[in-house]
């Protein structure tokens, strides 16, 4: 047998049909659904008289535009159009008989946090969702990627996706990370190096000692941003940490099925002499705590650097950098650590898990948010929130002056009322710093939860190592 990558193995196990030209029907094991990209797909099913082929493999949860304020049980806190979308999902879940976690359920949260938490996401699976950050689930060694609404309808109706195989890319992070450096710094550093189109056409497998050393939460953070590097999916081979995380979750296999699953999962790794179309290697010790300065996730620099000038770049990036600098209101040459912020947002499917909240709490314990700053923590799910309360993290946040919210996407994309005003500057743990992403005219700097917590204390972009 010829050597295979992890991606090859999962792909081969899911091809239901291959046409002569190489176009495949890829069987989908888990289909996650949220309120924003699904209404038109369900409408399409109704119009054509089609049904959901595998409702038991389809899981829905509203997350993108649900309010995260404590009074959200009161439907009037939602705008009319948001309410219509959430109600449409309620109805579609019921009519088509799919698994559903409504807003009132403690298990509700961001779809990419709920999936793994409930044991829906398992190694070796194919997972799709009408959301580009589906890449998150790759942390379990499952082939997971975002799809458009037409494809959502296609998966609902056929449980397959029309696909051509992508290329294999290996991103190896060797050695150990320095203190204060986290999974977020790894993933941002990789994008800074490859650019936002560097992974286009590839599936990335992250490997190396620094990746192995990460917790499952950290691995999800890394895979989450594979899409910001242009790759549809990011993967990490499953290991004991993965199996420990999965074991005992509500929808994980049990008994004899667990043993059978485990036997197969243990074969899910890239063979030693497998072929890679592209390889990138970064030394773990070379990665610093980083922030973004511009309006593309590739605009990454160590916190110790200065704001660049457009003339530092070449090609189309010169104009893009100039536009970014103007939008971000930054002057070239300014030390990044002197850039003052107005808002701190900790949350999102990148960094809304318990480990992220622990990292933020470790910095915030006994400290206060800088006067005049707005600071918000939005846990990724109701269960993350409950655990943070049990561990006393919520008290640390509240005492520091953070707002402690209910679960949802919140200010990651600002579809609910959590938004930046024009010109407001935010230290955010989310994944996109595009123009207007967190509100029209809002300025976003991406960073790790520990870095965002440090910024909340000083009121400026801050090297977390100063506070450790």
């Amino acid at each position: 047998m010829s050597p295979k990558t992890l991606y090859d193995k999962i792909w081969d196990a899911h091809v239901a049909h291959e046409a002569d030209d190489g176009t495949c029907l890829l069987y989908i094991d888990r289909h996650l659904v949220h309120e924003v990209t699904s209404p038109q797909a369900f409408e399409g099913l109704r119009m054509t008289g089609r049904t959901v082929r595998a409702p038991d493999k389809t899981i829905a949860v509203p997350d993108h535009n649900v309010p995260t304020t404590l009074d959200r049980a009161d439907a009037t806190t939602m705008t009319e159009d948001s309410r219509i979308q959430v109600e449409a999902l309620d109805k579609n879940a019921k009519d088509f008989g799919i698994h559903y976690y409504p807003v009132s359920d403690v298990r509700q949260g961001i779809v990419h946090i709920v999936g793994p938490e409930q044991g829906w996401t398992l190694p070796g699976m194919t997972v799709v969702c009408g959301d580009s950050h589906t890449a998150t689930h790759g942390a379990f060694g499952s082939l997971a990627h975002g799809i458009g609404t037409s494809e959502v309808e296609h998966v609902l109706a056929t449980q397959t996706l029309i696909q051509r195989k992508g290329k294999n890319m290996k991103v190896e992070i060797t050695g150990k990370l320095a203190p204060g450096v986290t999974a977020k710094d790894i993933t941002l550093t990789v994008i800074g190096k490859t650019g936002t189109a560097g992974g286009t056409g590839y599936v990335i497998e992250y490997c190396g000692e620094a990746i192995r050393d990460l917790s499952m939460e950290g691995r999800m953070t890394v895979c989450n941003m594979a899409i910001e590097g242009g790759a549809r999916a990011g993967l990490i081979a499953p290991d004991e940490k993965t199996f420990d995380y999965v074991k005992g979750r509500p929808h994980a296999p049990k008994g004899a099925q667990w043993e059978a699953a485990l036997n197969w999962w243990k074969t899910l790794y890239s063979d030693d002499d497998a072929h890679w179309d592209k390889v990138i290697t970064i030394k773990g010790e070379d990665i610093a705590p980083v922030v973004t300065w511009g309006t593309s996730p590739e605009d990454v620099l160590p916190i110790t650097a200065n704001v660049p000038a457009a003339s530092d770049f070449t090609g189309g990036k010169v104009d893009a950098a100039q536009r970014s600098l103007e939008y971000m209101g930054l002057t070239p040459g300014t030390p990044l650590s002197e850039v003052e912020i107005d808002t701190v947002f900790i949350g999102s499917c990148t960094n809304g898990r318990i480990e992220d909240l622990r990292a933020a709490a470790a910095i915030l314990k006994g400290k206060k948010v800088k006067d005049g700053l707005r600071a918000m923590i939005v846990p990724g799910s109701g269960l993350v929130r409950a655990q943070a309360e049990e561990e006393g993290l919520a008290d640390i946040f509240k005492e520091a002056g953070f707002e402690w919210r209910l679960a949802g996407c919140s200010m990651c994309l600002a579809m609910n009322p959590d938004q930046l005003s024009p010109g407001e500057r935010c230290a955010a743990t989310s994944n996109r710093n595009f123009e207007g992403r967190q509100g029209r005219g809002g300025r976003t700097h991406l960073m790790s939860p520990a870095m965002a917590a440090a910024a909340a204390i000083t009121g400026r972009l801050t090297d977390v190592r100063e506070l450790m």
Partner: protein
Amino acid sequence: MDPFNTLTGIAAPLPLINIDTDMIIPKQFLKTIKRTGLGVNLFDEMRYDDDRNEIPTFVLNKPQYRDANILVTGENFGCGSSREHAPWAIKDFGISCVIAPSYADIFYNNCFKNGILPIVLPQEQVDVLMKDAEKGANARISIDLEAQTITNSEGEVFSFEVDAFKKHCLMNGLDDIGLTMEKVAAIDTFESTAAQSRPWV
């Protein structure tokens, strides 16, 4: 879906790289449960000021480009989220062909499912067409999907590549789901085999 065969029309130049889906259609317009009506909000934040007045310098607000049906733009067009609202907005505005050196994966795929032809050309050729587009409404561009060619107002012809299956579907306005349903036996077989080999799924 509307079949796509030939198209002759006005090309609007948008010479920016990394145009993301938030720029194409900001999230406040994703709250619809319909596929239509998004054209007025295409490129919303570049197109309107805070008081919802048109920004006259933005290309689609200029009189000569209001009826554009082709967009010429920079590399990595459509990066960011998977929102199909981006191609819906483009289509609803009246644009059914985009020409760029490269696209983000998901956006590229989404175009074909909505009757939009995304053409990839080398940067130098995009530069030529960009200059052409900048001449305004008289510089008409013609696209022939069958022949896989673009002809600019000077009569220059550029060939482009497109996946044969995607081309077939686009030219015939075929619905993917219908095509897949024809292979339902293969899916049934796969499903029952997988139920044995991976019963935990």
